């Protein structure tokens, strides 16, 4: 896993405590809204996202920048690179 610090996101989505697969549904929904090159931050406590989000990025051709871990949840950073 790639860890990052101090990434400045353009959009943040808080889905902490929301059930699986909200992390993939929200990710898809939010990425549609973003412009090319913008960064999305997703906050979630769901550990399945550790695999799913990088895999989703690979599949869709978006850049997975990395993640940051806090006491309670994870923050994932994704840059929109796919058209």
């Amino acid at each position, binding site marked *: 896993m790639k860890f990052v610090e101090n990434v400045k996101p353009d959009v943040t989505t*808080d889905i902490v*405590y*929301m*059930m*699986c697969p*909200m992390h993939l549904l929200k990710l898809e929904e939010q990425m549609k809204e973003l412009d090319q090159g913008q960064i999305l931050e997703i906050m979630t406590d769901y550990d399945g996202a550790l695999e799913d989000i990088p895999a989703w990025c690979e599949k869709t051709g978006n850049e997975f920048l990395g993640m940051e871990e806090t006491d309670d949840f994870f923050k994932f950073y994704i840059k929109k690179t796919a058209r």
Partner: protein
Amino acid sequence: MKKYYFDHVATNPLHPDVLEAMMPYFKEEFGNPLSIYEYGSKAKNAIEEAREKVAALINSKPAEIIFTANGAEANNFALRGIALAKQNEGKHIIVSRMEHHSILNSARFLEKSGFVVTYLPVDKKGFVSPDAVRKAITKETVLISVTHGSSEVGTIEPLKEIVKVAKEKKIIVHTDAVATTGNIPVDVKDLGVDLLSIAAHQFYGPKGAGALYVKQGMRIVPLIYGGIQESGRRAGTENVPAIVGMGKAAEMAKAELQMRMDYLKPLRDRIINTLTEEKNVFLTGDRENRLPGHVSFCVEFIEGEAMLLLLAAKGIFSASGSACSSKALKASPVLLAMGVPAGLAQGSIVFSLGMGNTSEDIDYLLKEFPAVISRLREISPFAQGWGDKDGGESCTVKK
């Protein structure tokens, strides 16, 4: 024999228009809202439409409404969901002694799980004082839950002032608005609360549908795990007909709210004015800040259960204490918290009116109820008093 239903805090009859709106979702529109084909999308759209109507009733955004099975689930969800989501910031919760069992027992569960709970005292009329809230707040406090209105004594709490105190310390506030929503104006923005519980059957909607308003951006740990229904916050296949019914009932309540209040208040006041003239009958709760169709008394030297039985024999249906504790043979904790002596609290009776009640119904009640009191007094071993003569001191209306 004609039946006189005066127990609308227990539940209301379903409005015929609500039933009509629900019917297609029992029959042809039976789809699961998560299904991606037509049956599913129709059910999904029906739920979203209901969400908009419920949101409009309390002036929230549709996305801030999470449907639940009932008010008790909404209350459990609020208390446990917020306590667990905020436990790293503190483990202290404040609730009032006016609360329904679904709040009190959730609080007790949290106590067993390591939280500390403060139970706020109330005054003789059942008011929670904002100052008591201020004094109860500690650095550990993460949630305050105070009911909007009591179904037991009808008192409407000074919620805005309580929220103001809580917000000085940035503490989350939940309110159980089951008794008030659809009966008096409820506006989440005006009240300033973060979470608010509703039940459809309190405003002529069906049983099996409730909702929790959760202010946008608030994290809450789910009570029921599973799929992504209700944005991943409340799993389980939705009760589509009941939710549709709740939406329709909310729409009607919003349109008719003032008319309903104007209809019920004079009926209520007639009962209060007449029966407080009776000897040893005391109004419980506040006279002015009171639910529109709500009348509650304590009758000295008589047991509530006995009154219920004799009234039922006359076709009059009412409640004693809180609607659900009339079977638990003990004095109501709410009345005791208000300082009503235990003996007097045994004689509690609640008449709660609805749109089906007429002025003639009230005539009948006002004729029969004093007769029931007289009959029971004749056979009461306590008719001469309880010995300590403490009755009535703490009640709000004393002759």
